[in-house]
């Protein structure tokens, strides 16, 4: 099955939500770009990075 119908089927299975309009197909198809962006980042999340606390980082990075 191709990416778009597979993605839409997954959404229907997991969430019970179907494409609400024609534009939804385009936005769902654009998720391929998100996958490509994440592929490019693979390996950047290190095992030792956890636990990660964003609020602590905000405090630590303040002047």
């Amino acid at each position, binding site marked *: 099955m191709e990416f778009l119908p597979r*993605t*839409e089927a*997954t*959404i229907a299975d*997991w*969430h*019970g*939500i179907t*494409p*609400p*309009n*024609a*534009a*939804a197909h*385009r*936005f*769902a198809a*654009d*998720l391929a770009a*998100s996958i490509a*962006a*994440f592929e*490019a*980042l693979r390996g*950047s*999340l290190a095992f030792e*990075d*956890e636990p*990660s*606390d*964003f*609020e*602590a*980082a*905000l*405090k*630590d*990075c*303040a*002047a």
Partner: protein
Amino acid sequence: MSELADLSLTESAAVGRDGGAVALLQACLARLDAWNPEINATIWLDRDAALARATELDRADGPRGPLHGVPMAHKDMYFQAGRPCTCGSAIRRDFVPEVTATVIERLAAAGSHSFGGLNMAEFAQNPTGHNRAFGDCRNPWQTDHITGGSSSGSGAAVAVGATYASLGSDTGGSIRLPASACGVTGLKPTQTRVSRAGVMPLSFSADNVGPLARTARDCALILQTIAGHDAKDPTSSDRPVPDYLAAMDGDLRGVRVGIPTGPLMDAAEASVQAAIEAACAVLVARGASLVRVDLPLMDAVTAYVGIVSRVEGATIHATWMRERPQDYAPHLAARLFAGYAVPGVYYVEALSRRGPILRRFAAEVFAKVDVLALPSIPTALPTRAATDVDADVAHVAAFNAVSVNTRPFNYLGLPALSAPCGFDPNGLPIGLQLVARPFAEATILKAAEAYQRDTGWHSARPVLAG
């Protein structure tokens, strides 16, 4: 009356404390009545209650707060008990909350009162200001152009003098974009700086409350009033709130300003780049130093920021997306729909990387500069038609391009301000975006206020045709 509407927030507060609350309200309403047929900035108004409250404030004995008698209208997503709160949506058209947002309570404690709910993007989820449920808010400089979103009514109403300031919200640029597009000043504070209790949620990791006003000084006055820990919002910071106004001395000696290398600046249109460079020259004349600085990890920031807000937005809208998807604007339903396909592992990765990325970004960037300066919107301002995804999904690229320079700083949680710094070739405002390290709002407010001492862009006003 007209002159009263043109006052800054700071000036209007002096009038209010001197017994001019009714006069201030009447000035704002008169200005709104004149402009609203052109710009569609409001969703609801409560004239009678506002007049009654202004009368009470004029008659009140005892000490008067810093915003005594100042009328304001806010983006229609702040809960006020017993008053409408549509969130710009058909779905919440009849919603009336039973509680009041902490930030509204804090403004009221300072003496301000609110008289209406302003237009906004539906559920605060677009960067242009398009709204199918209540009609698009239109840019007062040229009504066929976008106001920027999602705080569209806030930007337009402040620009025409219909409110002295307005609370907006910013999850991907929704304060800075309408500030830029409408020629006003807008501040997105550091993540956690301002309480979100009683505020419509969009993306709980990236939502921020902040002001749009006519000057940096006015934004500082609002932030001074609303910032600080709130027991009703456990995510709000307990860090002490500094005196923002006291820091505004116009002296930028020792302040290091950095223009980013890379696409956030280099991909901007020539007229926008020129305006930013000219603005930085003004800061340098005030004593600042200027450098070029590389921004690390921007590919990761760009990838992660869209995932976080998309998944969180999809999550809180799931019930309505199942039961009444037809009641959303098509572009919003389509955007939410895609959020349901994002794997949980991606979402957790995006959140897990946020702290480490911020730490490295801050270490590399803020070791070299105190303030980043870049365009709020990198292009000449587009028209509503050219960014109308509901009319043609092919417009999605232009739609997304509007917020490309603001979204990264929501992921990083950094304070960011947009101030007017010129006009594009079509006569629409250009915004200078200033960004600083966490909790350094005082630094960007000081820089913007110093800039506004020597420039007049923030004083320019759109002219009502006819």
